[in-house]
Protein backbone atom coordinates (compact mmCIF):
# COMPACT_ATOMS: atom_id res chain seq x y z
CA UNK A 1 0.00 0.00 0.00
CA UNK A 2 1.53 3.31 -1.02
CA UNK A 3 1.52 5.92 1.68
CA UNK A 4 0.21 9.30 0.69
CA UNK A 5 0.01 12.29 2.93
CA UNK A 6 -3.68 12.74 3.67
CA UNK A 7 -5.02 16.26 3.84
CA UNK A 8 -6.65 16.66 7.20
CA UNK A 9 -10.03 17.90 6.06
CA UNK A 10 -13.53 16.47 5.71
CA UNK A 11 -13.59 14.10 2.77
CA UNK A 12 -16.30 15.37 0.48
CA UNK A 13 -16.34 12.43 -1.89
CA UNK A 14 -18.94 10.05 -0.41
CA UNK A 15 -17.35 6.90 -1.68
CA UNK A 16 -13.87 7.82 -0.50
CA UNK A 17 -15.19 8.98 2.84
CA UNK A 18 -17.07 5.77 3.49
CA UNK A 19 -14.05 3.70 2.56
CA UNK A 20 -11.76 5.73 4.79
CA UNK A 21 -14.30 5.58 7.60
CA UNK A 22 -14.46 1.81 7.44
CA UNK A 23 -10.70 1.35 7.40
CA UNK A 24 -9.92 3.86 10.08
CA UNK A 25 -12.66 2.67 12.41
CA UNK A 26 -11.24 -0.81 12.19
CA UNK A 27 -7.73 0.54 12.82
CA UNK A 28 -8.89 2.58 15.79
CA UNK A 29 -10.59 -0.39 17.40
CA UNK A 30 -7.46 -2.41 16.91
CA UNK A 31 -5.38 0.27 18.60
CA UNK A 32 -7.68 0.43 21.60
CA UNK A 33 -7.55 -3.31 21.91
CA UNK A 34 -3.76 -3.36 21.75
CA UNK A 35 -3.46 -0.61 24.32
CA UNK A 36 -5.70 -2.52 26.67
CA UNK A 37 -3.79 -5.78 26.28
CA UNK A 38 -0.26 -4.40 26.32
CA UNK A 39 -0.78 -2.21 29.33
CA UNK A 40 -3.34 -4.30 31.15
CA UNK A 41 -5.85 -1.49 31.44
CA UNK A 42 -9.56 -0.94 30.99
CA UNK A 43 -10.74 1.05 28.02
CA UNK A 44 -13.72 1.56 25.74
CA UNK A 45 -14.50 3.24 22.45
CA UNK A 46 -17.79 4.46 21.00
CA UNK A 47 -18.04 5.62 17.40
CA UNK A 48 -21.13 7.11 15.78
CA UNK A 49 -20.89 7.30 12.02
CA UNK A 50 -23.02 9.94 10.32
CA UNK A 51 -26.43 8.64 9.35
CA UNK A 52 -26.08 5.57 11.50
CA UNK A 53 -28.15 5.39 14.63
CA UNK A 54 -26.26 2.51 16.21
CA UNK A 55 -22.67 3.10 17.22
CA UNK A 56 -19.76 0.78 16.81
CA UNK A 57 -18.18 -0.04 20.11
CA UNK A 58 -15.23 -1.76 21.74
CA UNK A 59 -14.94 -4.10 23.50
CA UNK A 60 -18.68 -4.87 23.45
CA UNK A 61 -21.87 -3.11 24.51
CA UNK A 62 -21.64 -4.80 27.89
CA UNK A 63 -17.95 -4.00 28.19
CA UNK A 64 -18.61 -0.36 27.36
CA UNK A 65 -21.34 -0.17 29.99
CA UNK A 66 -18.91 -1.53 32.55
CA UNK A 67 -16.16 0.93 31.74
CA UNK A 68 -18.58 3.84 31.57
CA UNK A 69 -20.02 3.08 34.99
CA UNK A 70 -16.50 2.87 36.42
CA UNK A 71 -15.85 6.24 34.81
CA UNK A 72 -19.03 7.78 36.19
CA UNK A 73 -18.25 6.55 39.68
CA UNK A 74 -15.18 8.76 39.81
CA UNK A 75 -15.45 12.25 41.26
CA UNK A 76 -16.24 14.75 38.56
CA UNK A 77 -12.89 16.46 38.95
CA UNK A 78 -11.04 13.27 38.12
CA UNK A 79 -13.30 12.64 35.18
CA UNK A 80 -12.64 16.06 33.74
CA UNK A 81 -8.97 16.38 34.51
CA UNK A 82 -7.66 14.55 31.47
CA UNK A 83 -10.70 15.00 29.31
CA UNK A 84 -10.12 16.54 25.91
CA UNK A 85 -11.99 17.31 22.76
CA UNK A 86 -10.39 17.95 19.40
CA UNK A 87 -9.63 21.57 20.08
CA UNK A 88 -8.03 21.12 23.46
CA UNK A 89 -6.17 18.05 22.26
CA UNK A 90 -4.72 19.99 19.34
CA UNK A 91 -3.73 22.85 21.62
CA UNK A 92 -1.86 20.40 23.83
CA UNK A 93 0.00 19.02 20.86
CA UNK A 94 0.81 22.50 19.61
CA UNK A 95 2.22 23.47 22.98
CA UNK A 96 4.39 20.39 23.08
CA UNK A 97 5.63 20.83 19.53
CA UNK A 98 6.46 24.45 20.27
CA UNK A 99 8.43 23.46 23.35
CA UNK A 100 10.39 20.90 21.38
CA UNK A 101 11.04 23.43 18.65
CA UNK A 102 12.43 26.01 21.04
CA UNK A 103 14.62 23.41 22.67
CA UNK A 104 15.96 22.26 19.33
CA UNK A 105 16.62 25.81 18.21
CA UNK A 106 18.53 26.50 21.38
CA UNK A 107 20.59 23.37 20.86
CA UNK A 108 21.33 24.34 17.31
CA UNK A 109 22.30 27.80 18.38
CA UNK A 110 24.80 26.40 20.86
CA UNK A 111 26.24 24.10 18.24
CA UNK A 112 26.47 26.96 15.79
CA UNK A 113 28.36 29.07 18.31
CA UNK A 114 30.70 26.25 19.11
CA UNK A 115 31.52 25.81 15.44
CA UNK A 116 32.04 29.53 15.04
CA UNK A 117 34.46 29.52 17.92
CA UNK A 118 36.42 26.51 16.73
CA UNK A 119 36.66 27.66 13.16
CA UNK A 120 37.84 31.11 14.11
CA UNK A 121 40.74 29.82 16.14
CA UNK A 122 42.65 29.34 12.93
CA UNK A 123 42.43 32.96 12.03
CA UNK A 124 39.54 33.07 9.66
CA UNK A 125 38.12 36.54 9.88
CA UNK A 126 35.18 37.13 12.12
CA UNK A 127 32.46 38.44 9.88
CA UNK A 128 30.14 41.08 11.17
CA UNK A 129 28.80 39.66 14.35
CA UNK A 130 25.84 41.46 15.74
CA UNK A 131 25.85 42.29 19.40
CA UNK A 132 23.88 39.24 20.41
CA UNK A 133 26.28 36.93 18.58
CA UNK A 134 29.33 38.65 20.06
CA UNK A 135 27.92 38.32 23.55
CA UNK A 136 27.13 34.67 23.11
CA UNK A 137 30.41 33.86 21.50
CA UNK A 138 32.27 35.69 24.22
CA UNK A 139 30.37 33.79 26.87
CA UNK A 140 31.11 30.47 25.19
CA UNK A 141 34.81 31.31 25.02
CA UNK A 142 34.74 32.21 28.71
CA UNK A 143 33.21 28.84 29.53
CA UNK A 144 35.81 27.01 27.52
CA UNK A 145 38.62 29.00 29.12
CA UNK A 146 37.27 28.11 32.54
CA UNK A 147 37.22 24.43 31.68
CA UNK A 148 40.70 24.61 30.21
CA UNK A 149 42.08 26.35 33.27
CA UNK A 150 40.51 23.75 35.49
CA UNK A 151 42.04 20.96 33.52
CA UNK A 152 45.42 22.67 33.30
CA UNK A 153 45.43 22.97 37.08
CA UNK A 154 44.53 19.33 37.47
CA UNK A 155 47.19 18.19 35.06
CA UNK A 156 49.84 20.50 36.45
CA UNK A 157 49.19 19.22 39.96
CA UNK A 158 49.40 15.65 38.73
CA UNK A 159 52.68 16.19 36.95
CA UNK A 160 54.16 18.00 39.95
CA UNK A 161 53.23 15.26 42.33
CA UNK A 162 54.92 12.75 40.07
CA UNK A 163 58.15 14.69 40.38
CA UNK A 164 61.04 14.43 38.00
CA UNK A 165 59.89 11.14 36.54
CA UNK A 166 57.65 13.05 34.21
CA UNK A 167 60.18 15.07 32.28
CA UNK A 168 62.41 13.24 29.89
CA UNK A 169 63.92 15.87 27.70
CA UNK A 170 66.52 13.55 26.29
CA UNK A 171 63.97 11.77 24.12
CA UNK A 172 62.36 14.82 22.67
CA UNK A 173 62.51 15.41 18.98
CA UNK A 174 61.87 19.13 19.04
CA UNK A 175 64.17 21.28 21.16
CA UNK A 176 61.82 22.64 23.73
CA UNK A 177 62.42 25.48 26.16
CA UNK A 178 62.75 24.62 29.80
CA UNK A 179 59.68 26.61 30.77
CA UNK A 180 56.72 24.96 32.43
CA UNK A 181 54.98 24.50 29.14
CA UNK A 182 57.67 22.10 28.06
CA UNK A 183 57.08 19.53 30.74
CA UNK A 184 55.57 16.25 29.82
CA UNK A 185 52.38 15.69 31.61
CA UNK A 186 51.61 12.01 31.70
CA UNK A 187 53.99 10.52 34.15
CA UNK A 188 54.94 6.90 33.82
CA UNK A 189 54.54 6.69 30.05
CA UNK A 190 57.12 4.93 28.00
CA UNK A 191 59.74 6.86 26.08
CA UNK A 192 58.27 5.68 22.83
CA UNK A 193 54.89 7.08 23.69
CA UNK A 194 56.46 10.33 24.70
CA UNK A 195 58.26 10.48 21.39
CA UNK A 196 55.12 9.83 19.43
CA UNK A 197 53.39 12.42 21.50
CA UNK A 198 55.95 15.04 20.68
CA UNK A 199 55.90 14.29 17.00
CA UNK A 200 52.15 14.38 16.99
CA UNK A 201 52.24 17.64 18.84
CA UNK A 202 54.60 19.12 16.32
CA UNK A 203 52.27 18.06 13.55
CA UNK A 204 49.35 19.46 15.46
CA UNK A 205 51.02 22.78 15.95
CA UNK A 206 51.61 22.92 12.24
CA UNK A 207 47.98 22.02 11.67
CA UNK A 208 46.89 24.76 13.95
CA UNK A 209 48.87 27.25 11.92
CA UNK A 210 47.44 26.05 8.65
CA UNK A 211 45.47 26.57 6.48
CA UNK A 212 45.45 30.29 6.88
CA UNK A 213 48.07 32.59 5.41
CA UNK A 214 49.55 34.21 8.44
CA UNK A 215 50.61 33.14 11.87
CA UNK A 216 48.26 35.26 13.89
CA UNK A 217 44.92 34.16 15.28
CA UNK A 218 42.48 36.51 13.68
CA UNK A 219 44.81 39.44 14.09
CA UNK A 220 46.86 41.50 11.74
CA UNK A 221 50.12 40.78 13.51
CA UNK A 222 52.64 38.65 11.75
CA UNK A 223 53.92 37.05 14.92
CA UNK A 224 51.80 35.64 17.69
CA UNK A 225 51.73 38.30 20.38
CA UNK A 226 53.34 36.32 23.16
CA UNK A 227 55.46 38.14 25.62
CA UNK A 228 57.34 35.05 26.65
CA UNK A 229 60.36 34.50 24.48
CA UNK A 230 60.48 30.82 25.13
CA UNK A 231 57.01 30.36 23.83
CA UNK A 232 57.94 32.20 20.68
CA UNK A 233 60.70 29.72 20.19
CA UNK A 234 58.24 26.88 20.59
CA UNK A 235 55.99 28.22 17.88
CA UNK A 236 58.68 29.12 15.40
CA UNK A 237 60.46 25.84 15.87
CA UNK A 238 57.34 23.98 15.04
CA UNK A 239 56.50 26.05 12.05
CA UNK A 240 59.96 26.07 10.60
CA UNK A 241 61.39 22.79 11.75
CA UNK A 242 65.11 22.86 11.78
CA UNK A 243 66.84 20.64 9.31
CA UNK A 244 69.20 18.35 11.17
Amino acid at each position, binding site marked *: MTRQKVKLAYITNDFARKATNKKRKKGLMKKVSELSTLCGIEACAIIYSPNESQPEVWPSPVGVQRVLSEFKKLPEMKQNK*NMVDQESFLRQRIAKANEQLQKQCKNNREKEMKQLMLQNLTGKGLHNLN*MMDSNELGWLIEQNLKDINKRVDTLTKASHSQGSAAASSGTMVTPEPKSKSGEKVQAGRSDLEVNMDTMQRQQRITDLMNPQDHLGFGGDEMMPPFGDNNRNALWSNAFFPREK
Partner: protein
Amino acid sequence: MMQKNPIQGRQKLAMKKIAKKNNLQVTFSKRRAGLFKKASELCTLCGVDVAIIVFSPAGKVFSFGHPQVESTIDRFFSRNPCLHSSNTHKLVEAHRNANIQELNAQLAQLLDMLEVEKRKGEAFEEIREAGRRKCWWQAPIDELGLNELQQLRIALEELKRNVTKQGNQVLVDSSHCWPFLAANGIGGGVFPFGNEGYEMDPASSITQMYKFGHQGLF
Protein backbone atom coordinates in the same frame (compact mmCIF):
# COMPACT_ATOMS: atom_id res chain seq x y z
CA MET B 1 23.13 14.30 22.59
CA MET B 2 21.37 11.32 21.04
CA GLN B 3 23.29 8.13 20.48
CA LYS B 4 21.83 5.58 18.13
CA ASN B 5 20.28 2.98 20.35
CA PRO B 6 20.18 -0.41 18.63
CA ILE B 7 17.08 -1.28 20.63
CA GLN B 8 15.15 1.75 19.40
CA GLY B 9 12.88 1.73 16.40
CA ARG B 10 10.15 -0.64 15.37
CA GLN B 11 10.13 -3.94 17.23
CA LYS B 12 7.81 -6.86 16.76
CA LEU B 13 5.73 -6.74 19.90
CA ALA B 14 4.12 -9.74 21.54
CA MET B 15 0.45 -9.00 22.16
CA LYS B 16 0.39 -9.53 25.86
CA LYS B 17 0.87 -7.43 28.93
CA ILE B 18 4.30 -5.79 28.99
CA ALA B 19 6.50 -7.20 31.71
CA LYS B 20 8.71 -4.26 32.64
CA LYS B 21 6.84 -1.60 34.54
CA ASN B 22 8.82 1.25 33.05
CA ASN B 23 8.28 0.08 29.49
CA LEU B 24 4.63 -0.39 30.24
CA GLN B 25 4.23 3.15 31.45
CA VAL B 26 6.09 4.59 28.48
CA THR B 27 4.10 2.47 26.05
CA PHE B 28 0.90 3.58 27.64
CA SER B 29 1.79 7.26 27.30
CA LYS B 30 2.82 6.97 23.69
CA ARG B 31 0.00 4.74 22.55
CA ARG B 32 -2.64 6.73 24.36
CA ALA B 33 -1.46 9.87 22.58
CA GLY B 34 -1.39 8.00 19.28
CA LEU B 35 -4.87 6.62 19.85
CA PHE B 36 -6.30 10.07 20.51
CA LYS B 37 -4.53 11.37 17.45
CA LYS B 38 -6.08 8.68 15.26
CA ALA B 39 -9.48 9.38 16.76
CA SER B 40 -9.06 13.08 16.10
CA GLU B 41 -8.18 12.39 12.47
CA LEU B 42 -11.16 10.11 12.02
CA CYS B 43 -13.43 12.84 13.33
CA THR B 44 -12.04 15.42 10.94
CA LEU B 45 -11.90 13.19 7.88
CA CYS B 46 -15.19 11.39 8.21
CA GLY B 47 -17.31 13.54 10.46
CA VAL B 48 -17.90 10.92 13.14
CA ASP B 49 -18.75 11.39 16.80
CA VAL B 50 -16.57 9.49 19.24
CA ALA B 51 -15.91 8.89 22.87
CA ILE B 52 -12.84 7.03 24.06
CA ILE B 53 -12.13 6.34 27.71
CA VAL B 54 -8.85 4.91 28.90
CA PHE B 55 -7.70 4.06 32.41
CA SER B 56 -3.97 4.45 32.99
CA PRO B 57 -1.82 1.86 34.80
CA ALA B 58 -1.62 4.33 37.66
CA GLY B 59 -5.39 4.53 37.89
CA LYS B 60 -5.90 7.90 36.27
CA VAL B 61 -8.46 8.25 33.51
CA PHE B 62 -8.00 9.86 30.12
CA SER B 63 -10.80 10.55 27.69
CA PHE B 64 -11.21 11.94 24.23
CA GLY B 65 -14.53 12.94 22.75
CA HIS B 66 -16.01 14.63 19.73
CA PRO B 67 -17.89 16.84 19.92
CA GLN B 68 -17.68 16.23 23.66
CA VAL B 69 -17.05 13.13 25.77
CA GLU B 70 -20.09 13.81 27.92
CA SER B 71 -22.58 14.35 25.11
CA THR B 72 -21.48 11.19 23.29
CA ILE B 73 -21.66 9.10 26.47
CA ASP B 74 -25.14 10.46 27.17
CA ARG B 75 -26.15 9.60 23.65
CA PHE B 76 -24.96 6.05 24.22
CA PHE B 77 -26.78 5.72 27.51
CA SER B 78 -29.99 7.24 26.36
CA ARG B 79 -30.01 5.17 23.19
CA ASN B 80 -31.33 8.31 21.63
CA PRO B 81 -30.73 8.13 17.90
CA CYS B 82 -31.96 11.58 17.02
CA LEU B 83 -29.32 14.23 16.66
CA HIS B 84 -29.86 17.93 16.96
CA SER B 85 -29.94 19.36 13.51
CA SER B 86 -31.11 22.83 14.26
CA ASN B 87 -29.53 25.73 12.48
CA THR B 88 -27.89 26.89 15.67
CA HIS B 89 -26.29 23.55 16.14
CA LYS B 90 -25.04 23.50 12.58
CA LEU B 91 -23.57 26.94 13.01
CA VAL B 92 -21.80 25.97 16.20
CA GLU B 93 -20.41 22.91 14.53
CA ALA B 94 -19.21 24.84 11.47
CA HIS B 95 -17.45 27.32 13.73
CA ARG B 96 -15.83 24.52 15.69
CA ASN B 97 -14.64 22.79 12.55
CA ALA B 98 -13.11 25.99 11.27
CA ASN B 99 -11.18 26.35 14.53
CA ILE B 100 -9.99 22.81 14.32
CA GLN B 101 -8.83 23.24 10.77
CA GLU B 102 -6.79 26.26 11.77
CA LEU B 103 -5.25 24.43 14.72
CA ASN B 104 -4.38 21.50 12.52
CA ALA B 105 -2.62 23.87 10.13
CA GLN B 106 -0.65 25.47 12.95
CA LEU B 107 0.40 22.10 14.26
CA ALA B 108 1.49 20.92 10.84
CA GLN B 109 3.59 24.04 10.39
CA LEU B 110 5.26 23.61 13.77
CA LEU B 111 6.05 19.99 13.05
CA ASP B 112 7.61 20.96 9.73
CA MET B 113 9.78 23.56 11.41
CA LEU B 114 10.77 21.04 14.05
CA GLU B 115 11.84 18.64 11.34
CA VAL B 116 13.95 21.33 9.70
CA GLU B 117 15.68 22.15 12.96
CA LYS B 118 16.34 18.50 13.69
CA ARG B 119 18.04 18.09 10.33
CA LYS B 120 20.07 21.18 11.06
CA GLY B 121 21.14 19.71 14.36
CA GLU B 122 22.22 16.50 12.68
CA ALA B 123 24.21 18.44 10.12
CA PHE B 124 26.00 20.34 12.86
CA GLU B 125 26.85 17.06 14.54
CA GLU B 126 28.42 15.74 11.36
CA ILE B 127 30.51 18.88 10.94
CA ARG B 128 31.60 18.60 14.54
CA GLU B 129 32.60 14.98 14.16
CA ALA B 130 34.59 15.73 11.01
CA GLY B 131 36.23 18.65 12.75
CA ARG B 132 37.20 16.50 15.72
CA ARG B 133 38.94 14.05 13.50
CA LYS B 134 40.84 16.64 11.50
CA CYS B 135 41.81 19.25 14.05
CA TRP B 136 43.27 18.35 17.41
CA TRP B 137 42.01 21.48 19.07
CA GLN B 138 38.44 20.52 18.34
CA ALA B 139 38.69 17.38 20.45
CA PRO B 140 37.03 17.47 23.85
CA ILE B 141 39.12 19.28 26.40
CA ASP B 142 39.49 16.16 28.48
CA GLU B 143 41.46 14.52 25.73
CA LEU B 144 44.06 17.24 25.40
CA GLY B 145 47.47 17.31 27.02
CA LEU B 146 48.92 20.17 29.02
CA ASN B 147 50.84 21.67 26.13
CA GLU B 148 47.87 21.61 23.85
CA LEU B 149 45.65 23.12 26.50
CA GLN B 150 48.02 26.00 26.96
CA GLN B 151 48.22 26.65 23.26
CA LEU B 152 44.48 26.45 22.99
CA ARG B 153 44.12 28.84 25.86
CA ILE B 154 46.30 31.41 24.16
CA ALA B 155 44.34 31.06 20.94
CA LEU B 156 41.04 31.41 22.74
CA GLU B 157 42.15 34.48 24.63
CA GLU B 158 43.17 36.09 21.38
CA LEU B 159 39.82 35.21 19.85
CA LYS B 160 38.11 36.62 22.89
CA ARG B 161 39.89 39.92 22.38
CA ASN B 162 38.76 40.02 18.79
CA VAL B 163 35.19 39.22 19.65
CA THR B 164 35.08 41.87 22.32
CA LYS B 165 36.55 44.37 19.91
CA GLN B 166 33.91 43.49 17.34
CA GLY B 167 31.18 43.78 19.90
CA ASN B 168 32.36 47.16 21.06
CA GLN B 169 32.61 48.31 17.49
CA VAL B 170 29.00 47.41 16.90
CA LEU B 171 28.04 49.43 19.94
CA VAL B 172 29.96 52.43 18.76
CA ASP B 173 28.52 52.19 15.27
CA SER B 174 24.98 51.96 16.45
CA SER B 175 25.28 54.38 19.29
CA HIS B 176 23.38 56.98 17.35
CA CYS B 177 20.43 54.61 17.24
CA TRP B 178 20.60 53.28 20.80
CA PRO B 179 22.14 55.95 22.91
CA PHE B 180 21.15 54.26 26.14
CA LEU B 181 23.24 51.23 25.30
CA ALA B 182 26.42 53.02 24.36
CA ALA B 183 26.94 54.04 27.96
CA ASN B 184 27.62 50.43 28.99
CA GLY B 185 30.66 48.66 27.75
CA ILE B 186 30.65 44.99 26.94
CA GLY B 187 34.09 44.32 28.27
CA GLY B 188 34.81 41.07 29.93
CA GLY B 189 31.69 40.83 32.00
CA VAL B 190 29.17 38.05 32.26
CA PHE B 191 27.21 37.57 29.09
CA PRO B 192 23.51 36.81 29.18
CA PHE B 193 22.65 33.44 27.81
CA GLY B 194 19.02 32.84 28.31
CA ASN B 195 15.75 33.40 26.57
CA GLU B 196 15.51 36.93 27.90
CA GLY B 197 18.52 37.89 25.90
CA TYR B 198 17.07 36.73 22.65
CA GLU B 199 14.07 38.92 22.71
CA MET B 200 16.17 42.05 22.94
CA ASP B 201 17.61 41.94 19.48
CA PRO B 202 15.08 41.88 16.67
CA ALA B 203 17.83 41.92 14.10
CA SER B 204 19.06 38.45 14.81
CA SER B 205 17.36 35.93 12.58
CA ILE B 206 17.61 33.24 15.21
CA THR B 207 15.45 35.19 17.61
CA GLN B 208 12.54 34.86 15.23
CA MET B 209 12.36 31.24 16.26
CA TYR B 210 12.14 32.10 19.93
CA LYS B 211 9.49 34.67 19.34
CA PHE B 212 7.26 32.08 17.79
CA GLY B 213 6.27 30.77 21.13
CA HIS B 214 5.18 34.14 22.42
CA GLN B 215 3.14 35.38 19.55
CA GLY B 216 -0.20 34.12 20.70
CA LEU B 217 -0.80 31.07 18.61
CA PHE B 218 -4.05 30.40 20.30
